């Protein structure tokens, strides 16, 4: 049960072409959107009115995805585009400017995400050139990167970081001792697979390959930790399914999968709520559905939103 579902706000972004991503900052006060019109727009949505704060230009192709860094690093936003570039933007005294441009990919960069802030200012980027790269800053304006080639044939479509806390260390429920951290991420690609990667020393090794989809994986999302020694990944695909992958870390087990649902059309996005208890899914059937794990270990659909004909009052 999610309760009342209502339209809180509608934003006329003013983009001149279709929108590909929208991300709110950590506090839910600012909204960034990106579009095929090659711009990124930033809005203030903290008040009753939505106010456009900035329009960032610099990409030469459709901008696919955005990611806000943790506020402790300042106001930093990353964007990636068909133009093979990843741009990191920073706000200083109310003005946005480019902090860094990363151009090492050979084709469209499809997905980016900042790592959990405990790991520092680290950015993962997935690209159609079948690789993903990890950008990190050494603090004094210098950026380094490491690249992992051949991750998915036909392209890496989506990247998502695991929570920084090592779930295995959560077995002892409420222990005050600081749990150990781990650096893992999940990618999904055109080879229909979902892969889990772990950093070891200077490079990344594939920890697991999760197979189950029969067509391109469009989006992957690692669930935020809910304080239990369980890891969950949601993936959605061109094959019209959403699969929930679960690993019980307390028993050092393997990944098990469960098809959450088979939809009537391609599923494009999966996205977790910040507390990791609700999964939002959207697909080509014009519907958005919210899913929740009931306390009987079943995933149930708790809401459907349909794009019907009447205007919402």
């Amino acid at each position, binding site marked *: *049960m999610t309760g009342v579902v209502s*339209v809180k706000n509608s934003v006329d972004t003013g983009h001149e072409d279709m929108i590909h991503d929208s*991300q*709110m900052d950590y506090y839910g006060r600012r909204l960034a959107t990106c579009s095929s019109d090659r711009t990124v727009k930033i809005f203030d949505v903290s008040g009753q009115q939505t106010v456009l704060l900035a329009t960032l230009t610099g990409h030469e192709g459709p901008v696919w995805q955005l990611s806000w860094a943790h506020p402790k690093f300042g106001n930093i936003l990353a964007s990636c585009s068909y133009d093979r570039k990843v741009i990191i933007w920073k706000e200083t005294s109310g003005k946005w400017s480019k902090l860094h441009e990363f151009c090492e990919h050979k084709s469209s960069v499809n997905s980016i995400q900042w790592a959990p802030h405990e790991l520092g200012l680290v950015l993962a980027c997935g690209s159609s050139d079948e690789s993903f790269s990890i950008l990190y800053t050494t603090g004094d304006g210098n950026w380094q990167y490491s690249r992992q080639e051949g991750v998915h044939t036909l392209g890496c479509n989506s990247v998502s970081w695991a929570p920084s806390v090592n779930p295995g260390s959560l077995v002892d429920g409420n222990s005050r001792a600081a749990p150990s951290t781990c650096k893992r991420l999940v990618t999904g690609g055109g080879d229909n697979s979902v892969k889990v990667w772990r950093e070891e020393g200077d490079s990344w090794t594939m920890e697991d390959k999760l197979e189950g989809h029969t067509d391109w994986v469009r989006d992957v999302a690692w669930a935020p930790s809910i304080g239990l020694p369980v890891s969950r990944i949601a993936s959605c695909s061109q094959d019209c399914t959403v699969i929930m992958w679960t690993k019980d870390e307390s028993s050092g087990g393997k990944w098990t999968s469960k098809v959450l649902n088979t939809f009537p059309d391609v599923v494009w996005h999966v996205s977790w709520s910040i507390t990791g208890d609700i999964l939002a899914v959207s697909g080509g059937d014009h519907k958005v559905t919210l899913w929740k794990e009931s*306390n009987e270990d079943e995933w149930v659909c708790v809401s459907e939103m349909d794009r019907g004909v009447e205007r919402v009052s």
Partner: protein
Amino acid sequence: MADVEYDENDEERSSASRVGAGSGYNGDEEEEEATSSLTMSEVHTCGRVLLRTNPRNSIAIFTAPYDDHDDDHSNSDKETATSTDLYEVQWSGIVLTTDSVRKLVSQSHAFFMELQEYAGKGMDPDVCVKYSRLYRVALYECTQGLNYECENVDLEENELQDIKGQLEMYSLLNVLWHLCEILFIETLPVGCLIQQLLEWVRWHDRGDTDDVMNDVMSGVRPDTHQDYWSIVYRLTLQGRIDDVRKLLTYSSYCKENKKVFDSIDELLRKVPMIKSVIGHSRTELMGLWFVWNQECKRRRDRQDFVGCPQLNLLCGLLCGDKSCFSRPEVIDCCKMWYDMLVGRLLYTSPLILSTDYDLHVIAKDCLKLYCDHKGTAPYYFDTFILSALENKVIDVIKMVSSKLSNWWFVSHMTNLLHHRGSLVTSQLEYGSQLSEFLLIEYATALFVHPSLWEVAISYLSYCPTQGRHFMCSLVERVPLTTSTKALKLIRLCQRYEMTEEAQSICRVLARRCYGDGRMGSALTWCIKGQDATFAAFLAEKYFDFYESIGEFGDLSILDYLGDAVLLSNRLAFLSKYRDFHKQYSFGNYEAAGQLLVSLLTSGITLKKYWLTLLTDSIPLLQIPDKCVFSSADTYELLHILQEIDNTSSYSDQKDMITSQDEFSINKISLLRLALVRNLQSSLVLRERKH
């Protein structure tokens, strides 16, 4: 509306969490419709829907046209223009648009916290009862408040409907809560259940019975009023015997037939279970009732009341005759089916216990009779009541969770039940888990509302297994809009030992202040968060600033830091350096000199700052007739100067000497000269002393 996607028949799966429809309880919904009714304007139809979740329990929905290879999509007659609108759709587990509900939230929060305190010391059932009643009072006040809000003439129609919907829901929740309190929380002596149930029915009658009664009695001939007998039956079912007797005195039949009246009046006077039963054993009460019941039957069989059919029916009710309870005129007089139920229990099984199977049977029967008579299906709410009467407490919780869009009831009730011990059954291991699960739901629902983050965190702090985790992840999401709020947050983090989160918050604030150029404030936050790294960074920035401008800017903060400067070496250095400047400005040249020397020799100063510090010694070296530095000190300074000269970068790049380097070269020569002169003077002075 499109078809429901998932398996509607899968009741077990869906029992825990189907969505409620709209806000508040919609009494007209008869079937379980599992779809929520959110619709959006038809922006364009040939698009796929994309979304992202947002920190404030919302999702942003934006659309994009299909890719070219999806040409088979049959919407060619609609617009193909892309939409650049974005809809933010939020889900909320409690609607907080009204003051009354917000008040309920804060009041119940206070009670909740008190209750948890008691729970920690070992739970006394009476305490549970007390708090159940307190919650109920809060609920009642909420409904009163909502009632009042409905009268606001400035409301828009949809706002009014919304408030009315909430009023309906909270009123019904009040009824349900009361029943749950009676059945699951109270510890009742024998025979008391029926009294509690009677009180329950009377209390939630909302004055309706009284209104009708007064209306009937206001006339000259009450017994000719159309509702006369109806109200008599109703009062009988509610056990309001004195009122029944009073009403009967107005009956013309009774006036004319005094003996009949006396007969019925005597029966009424002696209805057992109405008055206090404390002190009697079950057997005694049973005996009392049996005797009375037999007498009722005897008088009816004796045809005492045949002259007046309504009176006869009344007697039939007293006898507990099931057929009488099924009569249309009796059913009609009941506003709710459970009015009928309680009446029937009073006269058929007054000693019933909440765990008796008969209770379930009779309840089901009454509901069915009522619905059949009215020609309607049971409302959601009736099924909740029925489940409670069937002693299925978990089912009640589940049903309310899934059918109403409100976590308030289930979270507080389950918590109370958990403490009372009512959740323990053979099948259920997760009593405390269920309580915690629901509290977390409630807390995360509250968190979305900007002013309720503290309340949300407070609830989470009482969830032993997962609460801490949610607290840690949510506390970082509270917008740091004012420093008061930030301090509050930090104190909260400290209280719950969330040190990393407190540090993170301090870092965010320090970074923000630094970005705004407020170095002093930034430093304060660093110290608050014990953030050595950022403090060091700031200290360096301060110094770089000083080097380039020649002025210190706002460093007054350093004067008040005391021991806090030990957080970072750089900070300690900065503080001491400022001391040096202060001493100089006060004219305490010797003290200043000593400070300078100790700064340079103690290793606290970064090498890159040595030259600057040495340059600061020049004015001290040039004070006429005074030798600030002893010869030993001067040797030290010379030594340092030499090191600078040896290791400076420009000496490695002799072919790239810049004007800056030239300046440094000059400076070094100047310093050397000044120092040597000072050495000279100090040696002479020393000689003179001896």
